[in-house]
């Protein structure tokens, strides 16, 4: 790294010479000075090509190694999800169960554990982690702020309020108890979506979505939803409050195949849609007007970014509760390893998000055996200090692309 910078500074030493030569060219536009300049330019260009290939190659090698390491980590975490838990299933038993296929009658206990409990859970961790990371990266581009996260536009707060309402009024709706498994995800998703729609409406000024207003409206919605949740919790019996809190810290183990079948398309959309807009998000980082000057339909892009946040945050909340920190941290880690351009950043963030959430879920399941920790507690517990460490190490980040 240091060596690279030394080389750069040596190249930068060429700079004053270039301005000096251009200066003299202004005064005397002689043929010799022009020839000199041309020679100088071509020397500079050669130097750049050399420097490019040198540092590009090194960067590419580093990035490829990181991508391989992260993929390995994700696969290891997924295998861990299938093998470990209250009962340990040996790897070969996992393999034979998987090979026998979903269609076969699963009679033995191992196969039941794997197919009905651990496989859906592992898949959900993978998809939700990737989608939350993707939503985090797009929100950070939308707000041009590396501290943005998927819940910033009020989505998570709206989901929580919807869920709190279901818990609080569950006693009333007990007559339609067959609806209850559907009620919670539906209310959580609807709450998040409604919050996002209100925020977007409030932020529209003269046909434009003002990013600053988006942030303020999101904060206001967060406050209002928080007040609603507080009011509902205070008048609820202790057991209901406990149920809500258990939900609010996130649990990937709640969902079965039906839930996953419903949210998978939504999460896949949240993962795939931003990839197509990678370059437009790059342009958006320069500013709204600058992106427009580069031909980006800024309004449509902002709508898509918010849609991605709703899909990822509300769909995750619907089946697993709100999960904090993954959407904030994964893009940060990705940016540090893979740079700012979204063409590489987005897939990298998705990979890191998937690995993070799978690992956190595995840890949540193993750390407090025979019971489980809420995965949201784990992501915050690991994520918080990790984030602080990242900030401490970042003091000179401006020097490093």
């Amino acid at each position, binding site marked *: 790294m240091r060596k690279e910078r030394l080389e750069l500074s040596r190249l930068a030493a060429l700079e004053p010479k270039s301005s000096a030569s251009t200066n003299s060219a202004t005064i005397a536009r002689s043929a010799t000075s022009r020839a000199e300049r041309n020679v100088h330019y071509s020397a500079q260009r050669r130097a750049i090509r050399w420097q490019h290939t040198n540092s590009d190659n090194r960067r590419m090698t580093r990035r490829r190694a990181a991508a391989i390491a992260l993929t390995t980590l994700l696969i290891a975490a997924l295998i861990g999800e299938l093998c470990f838990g209250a009962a340990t299933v040996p790897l070969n038993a996992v393999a034979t169960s998987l090979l026998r296929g979903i269609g076969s009658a699963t009679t033995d206990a191992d196969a039941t554990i794997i197919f009905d409990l651990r496989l859906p859970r592992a898949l959900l961790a993978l998809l939700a982690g990737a989608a939350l990371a993707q939503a985090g990266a797009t929100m950070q581009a939308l707000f041009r702020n590396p501290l943005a996260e998927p819940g910033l536009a009020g989505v998570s707060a709206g989901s929580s309020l919807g869920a709190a309402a279901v818990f609080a009024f569950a006693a009333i709706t007990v007559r339609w108890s067959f609806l209850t498994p559907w009620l919670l995800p539906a209310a959580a998703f609807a709450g998040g979506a409604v919050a996002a729609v209100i925020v977007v409406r409030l932020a529209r000024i003269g046909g434009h979505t003002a990013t600053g207003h988006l942030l303020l409206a999101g904060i206001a919605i967060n406050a209002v939803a928080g007040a609603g949740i507080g009011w509902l919790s205070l008048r609820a019996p202790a057991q209901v409050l406990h149920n809500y809190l258990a939900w609010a810290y996130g649990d990937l183990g709640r969902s079965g195949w039906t839930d996953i079948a419903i949210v998978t398309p939504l999460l896949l959309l949240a993962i795939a849609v931003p990839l197509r807009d990678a370059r437009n998000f790059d342009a958006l*980082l320069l500013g709204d007007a600058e992106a427009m000057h580069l*031909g980006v339909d800024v309004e449509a892009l902002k709508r898509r970014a918010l849609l991605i946040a709703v899909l990822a945050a509300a769909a995750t909340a619907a089946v697993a509760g709100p999960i904090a920190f993954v959407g904030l941290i994964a893009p940060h880690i990705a940016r540090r390893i893979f740079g*700012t351009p979204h063409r590489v950043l987005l897939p990298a963030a998705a990979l890191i998000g998937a690995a993070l959430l799978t690992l956190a879920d595995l840890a949540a399941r193993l750390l407090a055996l025979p019971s489980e920790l809420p995965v949201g507690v784990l992501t915050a517990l690991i994520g918080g200090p990790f984030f602080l460490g990242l900030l401490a190490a970042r003091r000179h980040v401006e020097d490093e692309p």
Partner: protein
Amino acid sequence: MSLVANGVGYDLPRRELLNGVSLSVEPGTVHALLGPNGAGKTTLLRLLAGDSCPSKGNITFDGRPLAHESAHALARRRAVMTQSDTLRFAFTAAEVVALGRLPFATAGSDEEQRVVAAALAATGSAALAARSYLALSGGERTRVRLARALAQVWEQFESGVGQSAPRYLLLDEPAAYLDLGHQHLALRLLRRFAAAGGGALVTLHDPNLALAYADTASVICNGVIAASGPASAVLTPATLAPIFGMNAQRIETDSGAPVLAWTAPRDC
């Protein structure tokens, strides 16, 4: 074939920013826009860029109303360099310049890399290519942003005058933050652009830069055009002295363009 403002006015709720402004950016020429702070230079440039619509009058782009052009179609024909420098993410300088090629959908291609390297070299920023934009000085950032605008209209430099669809450059104070040598380098690039058949509008604070490099000039004051025409006819002590509240003297030089020497009026 030109970018024209016809009697344009622009109002904020309690303030009139522009009134009856007419201006034309012609292919093959550099037009300089001068005026005191808050005179309406940036507002006019924004209207010509299509950021917002004028409250009065209209803007045409090659004879068609500017509002009818899509952002994408416009981006393939004109580049804008604004004054805002709000980027807070660690793109490298080369990555910033590469964004200028976004309207041409060639992400990561050899062609893109060639244009990016050429635009960086043209602005004297070649050595900045791999450095983080956030670590650059104000002047270096300005050069990188200028290189991004040039990369967007680079075809003009290569295809030259014969091209059927001339490109336009709208630059808001490209000379700000630049050292003397790079100020002249930036303006010489505009001359090269115009010589290749492109049309440029540039806001400047230094009348001497405009005298040396612009074909035509407009002076804007309090939202109206105070004078417009050939640069040497417009940028005279008689026009500029009252607007800027300075005393000016015109000096002929050996190298061609006259310069204005400024002195502050004596305080009473």
